């Protein structure tokens, strides 16, 4: 059976058909882009931080007395925290993934050379890597004799003298693509630093849109700032209790300090992504409303057309068309319109993506989203038209003789 009557009938409703095509195209373009934004944000939220997230309890301590020997204070604090029942290991660190407190250095491969990229510097006491549960995939841990103070009092000058570093796999691949990073020398400060180990992941304290979210360096430098974060490794169910006790014993040891943000790592991660979660909910509801409105529009117009054509349907039935034929007719008609809309939508989706990339820090639309979006819309169209089409196929041939 040829579909020429279909085309002929569509051409009688040019304006309506054009509107419907335009609506489907716009919906397709917007939904594809929204889906890609959601996908990107979800991917960011799922990035592995590289630490044992479920077993960490954190508390930040800021000593008000700056003249004191901070290293000795931290040691005293650590000894006290270690004595809390349920705490298996403790360490003092200057930053953590999602902590927002970011110290980045430009990394050069020759002295005073141009920086290839920037990477976060993480520093901590000797147990830090154990406590955080990081995965060393190559090389060795720091040796006790490699540790030096950060020397925050003199412009963090420890970075100019530190002998060794452990880097993330992502950073190693960026600095030395295709080469063995172990033993290579980098220049994060004035002096040469040898790479002695590689960890699989360690996210930076703040994520951005660039590919460098996992560019981190670990240094054997002891935090000697007044502001330090204590990390306690403990069983997940003990975290609350350990934090309460930690606050109490630290305040008891020295009340001349500010204790901030006692929290589990899980909590810190959740807080970090709170805005993204709101945004995802919002984007999801926007996409769903769009699809719903478009489906309602398709169904509304289809049922209107069915009503308008009752006589013609009756005649077709009277001259021999089966119910299936009528059903198929409306489904095909819908397929043609929505399909045309989806094709136009694909072009619009890319155009919209270009526009968004220009105005916001958004990524290129992954190509897979577009055909999937188009197909989804076609499917939605078929679903929306099913009701009216079934009603059309129920029109009895006797209608032809009336009116």
């Amino acid at each position, binding site marked *: 059976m040829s579909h020429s009557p279909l085309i002929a009938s569509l051409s009688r409703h040019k*304006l*309506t058909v054009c*509107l*419907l095509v*335009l*609506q489907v195209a*716009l*919906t397709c373009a*917007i939904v594809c882009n*929204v889906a890609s*934004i959601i996908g990107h944000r979800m991917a960011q939220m799922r990035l592995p931080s590289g630490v044992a997230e479920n077993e960490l309890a954190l508390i930040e301590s*800021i000593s*008000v*007395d*700056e003249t004191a020997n901070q290293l000795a204070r931290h040691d005293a604090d650590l000894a006290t925290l270690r004595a809390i029942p349920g705490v298996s290991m403790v360490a003092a660190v200057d930053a953590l993934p999602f902590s927002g407190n970011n110290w980045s250095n430009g990394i050069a491969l020759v002295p005073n050379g*141009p*920086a290839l990229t*920037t990477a976060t510097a993480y520093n901590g006491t000797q147990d830090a890597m154990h406590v955080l549960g990081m995965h060393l995939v190559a090389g060795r841990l720091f040796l006790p004799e490699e540790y030096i103070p950060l020397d925050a009092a003199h*412009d963090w000058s420890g970075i100019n003298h530190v002998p060794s570093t452990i880097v993330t796999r992502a950073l190693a691949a960026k600095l030395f693509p295709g080469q063995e990073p172990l033993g290579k020398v980098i220049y994060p400060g004035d002096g040469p630093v040898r790479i002695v180990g590689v960890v699989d992941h360690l996210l930076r304290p703040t994520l951005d849109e660039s590919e460098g979210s996992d560019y981190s360096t670990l240094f054997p430098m002891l935090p000697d700032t007044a502001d330090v974060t204590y990390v306690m490794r403990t069983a997940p169910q003990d975290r609350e209790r350990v934090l309460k006790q930690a606050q109490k014993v630290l*305040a008891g040891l020295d*009340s*001349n*300090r*500010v*204790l*901030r943000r006692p929290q589990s790592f899980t909590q810190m991660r959740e807080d970090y992504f*709170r*805005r993204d979660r*709101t*945004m995802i909910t*919002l*984007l999801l509801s*926007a996409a769903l*409303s*769009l699809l719903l*409105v*478009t489906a*309602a*529009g398709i169904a*509304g*117009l289809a049922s*209107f*057309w069915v*009503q*308008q054509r009752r006589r013609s349907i009756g005649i077709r039935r009277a001259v021999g068309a089966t119910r299936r034929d009528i059903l198929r007719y409306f489904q095909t008609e819908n397929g043609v319109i929505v399909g045309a809309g989806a094709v136009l939508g694909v072009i619009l989706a890319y155009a919209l993506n270009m526009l*968004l990339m220009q*105005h*916001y*820090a958004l990524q290129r639309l992954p190509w897979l989203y577009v055909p999937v979006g188009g197909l989804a819309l076609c499917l939605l169209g078929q679903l929306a038209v099913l009701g009216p089409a079934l009603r059309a196929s129920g029109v009895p041939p006797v209608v032809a003789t009336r*009116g």
Partner: protein
Amino acid sequence: MLGYYATTAISSLRRSKALAALMVLVIGLGIGASMTMITIFHVLSGDPLPGRSDQLYAPVIDPRPLARDHSESAEPDGNFTWPDAMNLLHAQRADRQAVMAGGAVPVRPQQSGELPFYETGRYVTADFFGMFKVPFASGHGWRSEDDESRARIVVLNSELNRKLFGNTPSIGRTVRLKNADFRVVGVLDDWRPQPQFYAQLNGRVFGKTDQFFLPLQTAQDLNLDFNGRMSCWDSGGRTSEHCVWLQFWVQLDSTAKAEAYRQFLGSYWREQQAHGRMPRPAHAHLFGLMDWLTRQHAIPDDLRLQLSLSLGFLAVCMINVVGLLLATFLRRGGEISVRRALGARRWDIFLQLGVESCVIGLAGGLLGLGIACLGLWSVRQRPDGYAQLAQMDASMLFGTFVLALVASVIAGLLPAWRACRIPPALQLKTQ
């Protein structure tokens, strides 16, 4: 006649209840979503200092060395080095000028045994209070002599004042910040300009307030902690000419003075070049306050994206309604051609159908208003700083209806035009 059209409109809508309800719902959703976002934008792009903002300017110079790689942004971030800020402050070429930086200090309560707590505030110079018309509940700011003598004085905002002193008068009393005692000279009347325009703008400037203000030179003297973004290209620390971190604002009472100040900035830049500093081409800027907020993207990107999305949604909704209206109008082809045959002009038909789409638009607007209120309520539940500002005001209420009416009239135009071209009585033959 319009009243009659309105009655016929309602009765004809009654005849196709489902379709009418669908149209009202779709307009309502579109209007509701877009009005939620437009209202938020309206509130957030408001003037933080009405009556004074047009005299306030943010000067921008670029002290950085010539670019070494492509990764750094071409535009300077508007922050100043200590020497530049002090030179411009002491030049006194504007009606008022102030240098400032964000700070965070441990505050030590008077009662022994209570742990110190952190508070964020600002290190400023004397003109800050007069320039920004800061309202005092009691006391006053300080004079530039106090800046120079590194006076240990502080102005408290109402919240911190209440926290430290309750309801007792606090002027003249002492607050211990970090390791030094400060004398309270003034208490503010809960000053919280939104956004906090004078700070470094980073997309999270809404909802923040400063709880204390103390002289910048004193803070530098005591090495109090700076809070914010500092970028350095060489060593030397924060008072060196290699670190930008300070904000500098000027008050200029006329555009002529603003032009003169721009000239002055340019000559300052060239003068520094003569001393071997500031090697980039001298191109000083002077941005008005509102201009500055726009340039610095004070409104978060996520919100701008949400606004675009809601407008896109409205567009799809409108196209949908145009299609549905077209369908309902054309279905009444018979009725229309009878009316035309009885002598109605095209204009009459157009008007009648126009009134009908207005009725739908008004109903949709009402629904949209409800949805927008619901939307704003849900925004207020967000944890962001701007959330509490998301309130409907009279102008936005009015705006909702105007938008609904304009949208529905525009949506009705095309279908009405198409329907009024139905020739008289021709349709009768086919019935």
